[in-house]
């Protein structure tokens, strides 16, 4: 018990951690034995920092801004915060995901294939004989198709909700808050 109090976890935890770190050390020495060990450290830690402190806040903020601009976060006066009961989202809510999903998919493609899209390698054609100027256009076209499909589904949804006299559209159901506590 004294160990647990001092260490904060059972002894097995410490054994697992030490085993893990030993392997990390064994491989880490080798990882850092190249010409530029500090650059490798920078890449390793930088990857985590870049993701956590730049990329994630960036897309979070973009999503948030889009919601504000599109009115999805607008909340009609009603129950106090933290206790929303129903129709908690504004009019933008009906179609925020029709923006969000294509942006997400297009951004994902860019994040994965940006070296080709931006022609960063500059040896691609010399090595492979393949043209390297097709990727930007393709990515833009795919993005256009994604938005077009999203718009199409939105139109179908709007059309359906107009034809059925029921006021509770699927979007409204989505917006309903689950617990109502």
């Amino acid at each position, binding site marked *: 018990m004294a160990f647990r109090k001092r260490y904060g976890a059972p002894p097995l935890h410490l054994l697992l951690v030490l085993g893990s770190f030993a*392997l990390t050390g064994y491989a880490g020495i080798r990882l850092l034995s190249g010409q530029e060990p500090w650059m490798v450290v920078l*890449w390793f830690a930088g990857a985590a920092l870049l*993701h956590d402190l730049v990329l994630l806040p960036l897309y979070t903020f973009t999503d948030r801004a889009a919601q504000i601009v599109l009115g999805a*976060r607008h909340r009609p006066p009603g129950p*106090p915060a*933290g206790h929303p009961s129903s129709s908690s989202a504004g009019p933008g809510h009906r179609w925020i995901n029709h923006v969000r999903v294509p942006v997400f*998919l297009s951004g994902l493609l860019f994040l994965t294939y940006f070296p080709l899209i931006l022609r960063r390698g500059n040896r691609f054609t010399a090595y492979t004989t393949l043209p390297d100027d097709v990727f930007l256009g393709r990515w833009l076209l795919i993005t256009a198709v994604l938005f077009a499909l999203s718009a199409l589904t939105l139109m179908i949804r709007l059309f359906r909700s107009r034809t059925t006299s029921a006021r509770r559209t699927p979007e409204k159901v989505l917006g309903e808050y689950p617990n109502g506590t």
Partner: protein
Amino acid sequence: MSEPHGQDQRPVGPRGGSADPGPSRAGSSLRSPVHPRGGVAGLLREGPPVGPTRPGFWRSPLRGPWLTSVFGAVLLVGIPLMFVTGLLSYAAYNPDLGGNDKTPERGWLGFYLISWPTDPHWLYRLNQGVHVTLGIVLIPVLLAKLWSVVPRLFSWPPVKSLSHALERLSVLLLVGGVLFEFATGLLNIQLDYIFPGSFYPLHFYGAWVFIGAFVLHVALRIPLMVRMLRDGGLREELRRPAAKKAGAGAALATAGPTSPSDPTGLTTPEPAAPTISRRGALGMVGAGSLLLFAMTAGQSIGGVWRGTALLAPRGQDPGPGPNGFQVNKTAAGVGIRPRDVGPAWRLVVRGQGQERVLTRAQVLALPQHSAALPIACVEGWSTEDQLWSGVRLRDLAALVGFAELAPGVFVQSAQRSGSFRSTTLRDNQVRDARSLLALKVNGADLSADHGYPARVIVPANPGVHNTKWVTTLTFGDSA
């Protein structure tokens, strides 16, 4: 995935007290009924009064141990598969032979190495296709997993105990490691060599650093994940269009971050109005994976499917004709000069102190054999089987006295740059009847870019070990 960055326009409500929508309010940082006491001690105990260390700062109602567990379960299958295919790829290079090893200091990290087989002949093609395509498909799952746990990065106090400090250090290795592996892999397949050093040691040792942290993370978190998935009711969740939480999720939605039912603190105490259901969020991530798969897999499947890989590096065909299949590196790209492969070219075969020097016509006069074999690259792309013809490597070994059991061979190329100018092949590879010094492909002479006058082709061999522009074959001990 609604997100919290302190700019919510709604009034905070009775507990918050302020209706000022300014960004400095940082969401629900004032939600705690007990305000932080002044002074350093108070600050240390309670944390900064605003900002991401406050649980209420993170407001997406999607977050919670259940969602994290779903992504975690996918990665629990995917990451080990990535690791194993990666290790197999390393084994496929036969790093214990000659100068093959790009990581000669590997020590015990090569404990599993085997004599890489030649059967099935598509083994390397499959291995690398899975490794690269799966890695790309996992990108959205990985990002979603990291998104789902980001509040933990800012948990307060930053260090609660020695065990907590060690765990956090391990998580840095885990997150840094996985992103490092994905980044180096993605850059390498797109020929964007900006990483600090050679790809092979970085990606190989980086994987071992990562896997140490991964195994620890799995060991510490798997009980929670299993409990969440058992209680959470995936089917119910997927059947539910609304952002309703089923099973344990329902309890967690109302539970505070310190509640025993959510030991992770991922569930926000201040949920924003949901704009997407969990089903929708999972669907969005799944759609991302599916789209990436559709944009990538064709370069490993080949045939009519190649054209579907619109954004993958090898989604285009280099042209028609017998030599119209993927080129790893062109003759010009690796500094092949016309005179190296012109009429003055000779094939030198050495072994047991003997040496034979052959012109191309003399090589063509030897017994010719055919084999249908693919080119498969470490970068994940591959070609369908091409019909190669040429002289069996074991027949060439017989020219210098290895009539019975052919030994391994050291292969040298006219190539003047690049790290694969030479290769050592193992005896099992030389003895395979499909292993050729190929002179022709699909009925035509090899093109310059495919290795004219002669190249090695061995079943299940990594592409760069199928040496092009071969000048010298040295059989036996010196191999």
